[in-house]
């Protein structure tokens, strides 16, 4: 059921190699351009954050693993621009370019600070929480999108079908599983659920260590 991006707990990756803490934010100039062009296109309003995450997750595993971080962003962006009808494949391939009827929405320099400062909060009015802090719950198994086969979800595979404890409730938040597929926001209570490392991994690195995930109510059932 899983997609390539869902890699928490995977074996086989080598050591983490930390860069110096004072390394450049964008170590190649195209990295900054890739980030900026992605944010500027997002401001056109033709997709939301969940749709853009799903676009990156939908890269073929071969591409996902081969691409560096910002290459994934660029590939996801190019695919979205076409699938959302913003540019044509002919234009992307270097053909004749026609002006877009979305041009009036272009992000101008004087609007950048406001757009970045405004953000995009995900909390919404919604149903009251069904679970209380301290309550035991079990996560959905397998981790999947119940609306769309192979669709976007934020329950990591490693935390599927595992028992945990509600640590916090964040109120109702936009449900990514629907929002990523143009099925509306369908806000649901969002919880931080804490799992014992032993429940997740069988043999934990140290007994008593824990992992938390932020999970929507429909991902959970009471115990």
């Amino acid at each position, binding site marked *: 059921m899983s997609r390539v991006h869902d890699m928490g707990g995977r074996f086989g990756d080598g050591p983490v190699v930390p860069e110096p803490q004072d390394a450049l934010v964008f170590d190649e100039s195209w990295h900054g351009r890739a980030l900026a062009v992605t944010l*500027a296109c997002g401001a056109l309003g033709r997709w939301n954050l969940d749709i853009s995450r799903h676009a990156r997750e939908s890269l073929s595993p071969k591409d996902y693993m081969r691409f560096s971080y*910002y290459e994934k962003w660029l590939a996801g*962006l190019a695919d979205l621009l076409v699938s959302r009808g913003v*540019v044509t494949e002919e234009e992307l391939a270097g053909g004749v370019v026609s002006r877009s009827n*979305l041009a009036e929405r*272009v992000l101008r*320099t004087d609007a950048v600070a406001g*757009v970045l400062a405004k953000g995009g909060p995900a909390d919404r009015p919604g149903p009251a929480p069904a679970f209380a802090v301290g309550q035991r719950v079990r996560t959905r198994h397998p981790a999947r999108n119940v609306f769309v086969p192979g669709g976007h979800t934020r329950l990591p595979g490693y935390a599927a079908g595992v028992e945990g404890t509600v640590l916090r409730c964040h109120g109702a938040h936009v449900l990514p599983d629907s929002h990523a597929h143009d099925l509306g926001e369908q806000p649901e209570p969002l919880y931080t659920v804490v799992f014992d490392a032993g429940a997740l991994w069988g043999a934990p690195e140290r007994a008593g260590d824990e*992992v*938390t995930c932020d999970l929507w109510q429909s991902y959970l059932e009471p115990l």
Partner: protein
Amino acid sequence: MPHDHHDHDHPHALLPPDPALRVKALESLLTAKGLIDPAALDVIIDTYAHKIGPQNGARVVARAWADPGFREALLEDATAVVSKLGFYGRQGEHIVAVENTDDVHNVVVCTLCSCYPWPLLGIPPGWYKSDAYRARVVREPRAVLAEFGVTLPEGQSVRVWDSTAEVRYLVIPQRPEGTEGWDEEALLPLITRDSMIGTGLAKAPA
């Protein structure tokens, strides 16, 4: 077959393979269509390269160390508290501060992508977005911390926060010993970016 190493089912395969040329091609196309203003891209890059970064998070931590009332409010509702300091914004709409103690050490990750508290820490470093960190820190946090040169006492448990929703986590590192009575400005240089992710500790006073 100039692009035969890309997946042909996806439109992105139509772009040049070299990433720097890819972004240039996209930027030219979108500019010609009237959909981006290249000068606005410069403003975005300048914002994250120079204006928004870990100095913001360090300010929050230093104040939490120096001011017990501020610390309490931060742990209660970090979004409200950091908003007052001007640190609200994109990828920081719902902030939770988690405090390291003698009993627990907190570490933040996003196993599914690269979620990170931008208004407090800026754009995440490469290692945070790497497969190795995303795959391993949830399963073997102590081995990963060792690769950062951090060894925790056996009595201190680890809690790894996987950022799977729009909540963004800021770790409040433990205040180093020997800083009793120090004010916010004196404490500030001890707070590193990695100490606010949980892969580092605050610096000891020189």
